[in-house]
């Protein structure tokens, strides 16, 4: 029934702009994937340097995201039960790491965690150095990623009918028990989404991590390092691996969202 001449000129113009925008967004990634020589990629991907940084990245990503769960969920729960005024003051603070330019977040963290600072000094005495170490990478990833877990789980907690929790309490469950048996299972999907979001953010973060630790190199740093020292062709292998990894997380997130 729909014929082409039915399309209004304005609508055609809209489609042209839309097509341009989609090309702009999809083109670079598609171009990158197409420009990679499979033989070179297969050979280069076996480079131990790449494997080392992949391991570091995935390990630190999971470590920081787990840490994010352990600390972020209690904060979200406390916020969801606290008064509106408290929540409204604290919620914007949680956004700071998202709003802060990554490089500046890096600068902040370096001065906060270096052994000359108070906090860094304490950890240094315990034998934990942050600058140029996996600890620092985990700290940087945690900083830029934890808001995602707090935000997604906070909105899920706020949606829970508080009568259910009260009923559980009336049935004799302590508040810790109510939290673990009622609140967490009810929000499991949102929490999982937050976890995957944080994981994706942690693994991809460059600006913050490069300030804290150029060495050991995470994959995003390796991409930059190879680009600067060996040129764009050499940077493509880790870049493709990184894109593949993040697309995997993206697909997982879409699946969890669709499931709800």
């Amino acid at each position: 029934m729909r014929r082409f001449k039915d399309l209004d000129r304005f609508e055609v113009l809209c489609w042209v702009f839309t097509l341009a925008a989609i090309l702009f967004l999809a083109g670079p990634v598609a171009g990158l994937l197409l420009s990679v020589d499979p033989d070179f990629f297969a050979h280069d991907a076996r480079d131990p340097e790449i494997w080392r940084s992949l391991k570091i990245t995935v390990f630190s990503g999971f470590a920081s995201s787990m840490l994010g769960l352990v600390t972020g969920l209690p904060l979200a729960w406390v916020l969801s039960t606290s008064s509106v005024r408290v929540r409204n003051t604290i919620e914007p603070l949680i956004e700071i790491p998202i709003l802060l330019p990554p490089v500046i977040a890096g600068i902040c963290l370096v001065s906060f965690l270096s052994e000359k600072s108070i906090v860094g000094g304490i950890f240094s005495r315990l034998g934990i150095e942050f600058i140029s170490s996996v600890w620092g990478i985990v700290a940087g990833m945690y900083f830029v990623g934890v808001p995602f877990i707090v935000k997604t789980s906070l909105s899920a907690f706020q949606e829970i009918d508080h009568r259910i929790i009260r009923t559980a309490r009336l049935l004799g469950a302590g508040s810790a028990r109510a939290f673990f048996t009622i609140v967490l299972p009810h929000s499991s999907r949102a929490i999982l989404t937050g976890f995957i979001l944080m994981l994706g953010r942690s693994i991809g973060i460059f600006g913050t991590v490069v300030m804290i630790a150029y060495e050991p190199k995470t994959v995003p740093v390796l991409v930059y390092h190879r680009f600067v020292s060996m040129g764009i062709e050499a940077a493509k292998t880790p870049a493709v691996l990184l894109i593949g990894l993040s697309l995997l997380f993206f697909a997982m997130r879409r699946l969890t969202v669709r499931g709800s």
Partner: protein
Amino acid sequence: MQDRLRSDSGRLHHAGLTTLIFSLLGGLILLFVVAPLLGMVLHCPAEDLAKAAADPAVTESIWLTLWTSMAATMIFAVSAVPLSYLLARKQFPLKGIVTGIIDLPVVIPHSAAGIALLGLISRGSLLGDLSDNLGFHFIGGPAGIMLAMAYVSLPFLINAARDGFSAVPERLEKAALNLGASPARVFFTISMPLAWRSILSGMILMFARGMSEFGAVVIVTYHPMITPVLIYERFGAFGLRYARPVSVIFVAVSLAVFVFLRFLGRKSVNAQSQ
């Protein structure tokens, strides 16, 4: 009865403990999120700040960052707004894939995005050669910076504008069509004004994202330096003491710009609705 009371008070005590632990854990995060920023600002001596503020390299890079991000937002809004409108209103094949593509730049790490973009516009690529022949260079100039900024920040505008258009009741557009307005006129007199608030906040968001971008820009265009690149370089070459004042100034300037934009935005929204 006695037992009951005791167990009740025991439970209360227990509840208090859980809340206490939770609050402590939560407080730790808050501390970790807020303290580094505060520390940076407090640790920055006034004389360093003054010196950095007087440094033309710093002021020039801040100015460059502001205008490139603003220009990128304006230019790309022209295609992003129609796209959001179509996404909000029309059903078309492969719509799921299109929404996935829109989120792509948010998902992929920025240094990888930089490599991908550079591959597209570098010398020897189709687009790069084409623009070189036209005497126009992406790499090493503001155009490259804008491209990189727009690439990583466009999705924020698209998503905000799409939500804005979705919130406009379709009935209003139909009523306007019924009164004889052409689709273009309906778009400009009904849909756009009603979605304006969302579009504007999407543009501010995109602008902010573009300004703070480092990973993609540093790969596409190191020179001229936008402020995040400048901070990176000063940190690498001279150390924390030289990077800190620039960071503080940049954060302060961005904050001031956003407060100003919000203020302007509120005024324009009020003007729209009057």
